[in-house]
Structures are given as structure tokens and as C-alpha cells.
């Protein structure tokens, strides 16, 4: 099976339940969308991410009620450097959506999802630990996997695979 080209036109995608709901809520929150390999990706403006997740979670028609994952991708050296990636799953509708927030390296702060959605707790701590993203409002933002006194954030692309010697 050949790969279909990705759709990035908002007009074509606006029937997707998650995007439809987000556009109706706040057009400024949505920076772009992509439908590729049967997966929906929506880029969200940094300040709206908690609102967007809560909105999708409470959606009466298609509630994205399960937070699968939070992770991050480092696009060093291009800017905006980091992409924080949220994977939501709708258990009743069996639908997935991926939300993204782009962060430039001069401001690594993004609002924490943990106070409203406790599942985010360990995921956000892991992203903080390995990428150094600051989740403001997280109740206990400490390193999760690396030792407390570790220097640097190992999953960043400018961190050598064998570590600093």
C-alpha cells in the first residue's frame, strides 16, 4: 500500500471531531493541523494547551477521556526547538488525536496539565527530566528517572549519546 500524502488544509480537515470542536472554541488556539497515516495532529498555541485538553476531555459527543502519553521532540538546531506532544484517546469513540505545542529555546515554559488531569503527572516529570521543559503549575516538578543531582537533560539532541566526560 502506497502512502497517501498528508493533508494539511484546515478546510478539508474541519469535520474531524477534535478539530471541529477546537475551531468552534477558539480559532486562535489552532495553529495548524495535519492528517497523515490515519493520524490526526493539531498544533496548539502554547497558552491554550490546558484549555484545549480540558475541552476535548469534556466533549459530550466524542470525549477524549484518556491521556495516553506526553512526550517531547527536540528539533535542534532549528527554531522553535521543542515540540511537546500530547496523545489523547477517546475510549467511547475509539479515536485518537495528537496535540502539539511548539516551544522556542528562549522560553521553555508551558502550563502543566497535572492539576486538571492527574495522569499527566509522571509524563510531565519525565519530559522535564529528559528535556528540561518547565511545566508551570506542576505540584512536584522533580527529576523522575535521572538522579536528583544530574546535570543536563539527556534526550536533548545536543547531549552526546555517551554523555559528558
Amino acid at each position, binding site marked *: *500500500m*502506497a*502512502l497517501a500524502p*498528508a493533508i494539511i488544509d484546515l478546510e478539508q480537515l474541519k469535520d474531524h471531531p477534535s478539530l471541529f470542536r477546537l475551531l468552534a472554541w477558539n480559532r486562535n488556539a489552532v495553529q495548524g493541523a495535519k492528517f*497523515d*497515516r490515519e*493520524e490526526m*495532529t493539531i498544533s496548539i498555541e502554547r497558552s491554550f494547551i490546558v484549555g484545549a485538553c480540558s475541552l476535548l476531555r469534556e466533549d459530550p459527543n466524542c470525549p477524549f*477521556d*484518556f*491521556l*495516553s*502519553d506526553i*512526550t517531547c*521532540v*527536540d528539533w535542534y538546531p532549528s527554531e522553535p526547538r521543542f515540540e511537546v*506532544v500530547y*496523545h489523547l*484517546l477517546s*475510549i467511547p469513540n*475509539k479515536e*485518537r488525536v*495528537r496535540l502539539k505545542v511548539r516551544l522556542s529555546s528562549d522560553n521553555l515554559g508551558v502550563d502543566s496539565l497535572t492539576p486538571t*488531569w*492527574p*495522569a*499527566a*503527572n*509522571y*509524563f510531565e516529570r*519525565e519530559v522535564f527530566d*529528559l528535556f528540561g521543559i518547565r511545566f508551570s503549575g506542576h*505540584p*512536584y516538578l*522533580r*527529576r*523522575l*528517572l*535521572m*538522579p*536528583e543531582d544530574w546535570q543536563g537533560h*539527556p*534526550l536533548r539532541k545536543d*547531549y552526546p*549519546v555517551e554523555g559528558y566526560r
Partner: protein
Amino acid sequence: MAHLDAMPVVGREQDRTMILNMGPQHPSTHGVLRVILEIDGENVVRIMPDIGFLHTGIEKTCEAKFYQQVVPLTDRIDYLCPLTNNLCYVLAVEKLLGLEIPPKAQWLRVLLNELTRINSHLVWLGTHAMDIGAMTVFLYCFREREEILRLFEAVSGQRMMTSYFRVGGIALPPPLDFFDRVRAFAKTFPSKVDEYENLLTNNPIWTMRTKGVATITAEDAKALGASGPTLRGSGVDFDLRRDMPYSGYENFKFKVPTAKEGDVFARYMCRVQELRESNNMVQQALDGMPEGPIKADAPKVVLPDREKMKTQMEALIYHFKIITEGFAVPEGEVYQAVESPRGEMGYYIVSDGTAKPYRVHMRSACLANMQTLPHMCEGRLLADVVAAIGSIDIVLGEIDR
């Protein structure tokens, strides 16, 4: 304990409580989990898991490997269900490539995955029962597990770190007597499950230690990101194999066991019934196994057969190219989730168009499930902590990666 004080505690009576350190070498923490407990007599006031002792940076290592070289790394994440991890990874890469997998390879993958689930649940049942004090079950479970490990050894040459699946299919055809051996195993296995259930399900000591212990409601379990039997034990009827099928699971008929109570016993019942369902699916896979190739027709991705390499120049060139340069994967990103024995195991892979993954992230079911631990244990007895840890079936290799 400066590290504990950072978390505010409501209504804490400073003088009455004490800090108890459980692990990382405690036998009932299933590896190297350290749990910091604040206890008031026998009651747990606060519990904080401390993880990371097994962190090996697998995600970082993946970025320096070719796509096909990542497969053996995925075994080491969750060492009790290596084939589930293999499957999840290869499915994700196949999705990135847009590869179609022949039906026989899909069915074999399902067959081996269900054997893996039985294997993993047997280890869980044995160790969980031993934690609570029922020694015998452990020996019985390991008797059957040994047979499954022999089957894995027959197909892949390895008992635990199988690395049997490849991007585009399966490494080797299984040996000739493999299906007969699996059939013999699947025929007797239900009676073995009866044996375990005889020892535990109606045992008054077992039920006293598990019923009503470490309860969690469906809403809380969902909000905390729990999946798999931990979620189904609270009454949420969701299984990725049935609801979002992958690798040909839509061809199989099976029940998804759920229980309403949300306690240790409910999770125990879910997993024990899953043992029977998985055994059923193994039999279905044996009966309906289609004929055909076990590798996709994609010479640039799949290694050629040994025989072809000796006679065809082209096959030899492809082999050389794949081994030395890997294969380029078109730009893009995918998230592929499978139902591992512990819950939703997910691989998020970002490709930048080269032969090495730009980023590989594993969504660990155990990590999310462990967030339910404080919720289950706080305000309850110290001895129940051991039952709760056992009931969410953690594997530290998967949590720490």
C-alpha cells in the same frame, strides 16, 4: 528526607508518623522499585514511588541505531513480554513505511503475542501470590512458563530476549514441530488454570487479603491514566485488541474480562480469565493459520532469504545495503499502541527521512499504572501496599526504560 518534605501534606501530624523505606531491593517490589512510605503505626499516611534505578536511556540509544537495530533493544524494555514490544515497534515502523504484511506473518505474530501474554501473566500470578504468602502457586506457574519459554527458544533461539519479529514480517519460519507443541500446550493449559484457581480463587486467606483491598473507581483509574487489567478491573470495558484492532486481531473471537469492584481481587480475576481467553486465541490462531509468505514483498526493507543470496546478485546487493546503510523511512510521525499484558504499550516514532529514527518514545503502561498506587494505598494498612504493588503488575524495566 528533604525530598519528601517538598510535597505538602494536609493534616499531617508531624510527631506521630515515621518514614519507612521499602526497596529498592525488597523482594516484593518486583525489581528495583523504591517506595517511600510515611506511616502512622500500621496505617499508610503517604506513599511515594521513587523510580529510575533501571534507567538505561534506551530512547536515546535508539536514535543512534538503524531502524532494524532497534528491535533487540525493545526486548529489554519489558523483559516479561518481549514479543509484545517487538510487535509494537515493528507495527509502528511498518505504519511509517506503509508496508503491508502477509496474513501468515500477522497470524504468527498474534499467536506468539498471546503466548507472551500467558507467560507474563504466569509470572505475575506466581510472584503476586508469593508476595501475599501463597508459595505453591509460584511453582505451578513456573512449570507452565517453562514450556512457553521452550517454545520461544524453538522459534527464536532465545528464551527471553526473543527479537523474533522484523520490520516487514518475521525473522525465520518456525520449526516443523512448533505448531504441534503449541497445540499440545494449549490443550492442557485450561486444566492448569483450574489448578491455580483451585489454590486461590475460593481460598479464604487469599480472598481476605485481596477483596476490598486497594480499591480504585473507574473515574479515578481513567483520570490517572491506568490501562489494561488495572482499568478493566474497575469496570471500564476497553481492550485495544478488540476496540482498535491491529495485526489481524479483528479475525479473532474473544471476550474481554472485566470486573466492577476495582480491588486487588477484581484485577486478579481479570488476569486469570485473560489466561483462558489468550489460550483460546492461541487455539484459534493454530486452527486458522493461513498459508503463504512470512515476509512482506519489499526487497529494500526486508532481508532476502539466505538461498536467494547465494544465487541472485540483486538479493546480495540488497542484503549488503540493508546491513550497512539501513533503509530510509519517509518523513513523518506515528503513534502505535498495542495491548500489552499490562495495558496500553505505545511507540511514538518520528522519522526525518533517514535510516535512523529521529526520536523513539515508548509509552509505558506500567509508568501510568503506577500513578494509581498512592491513590490505592493511602489511608490503608501497610501490609496492603504489597498486595497493591503486586496487583498492578509492574515491570521496572518498562517503567525506567
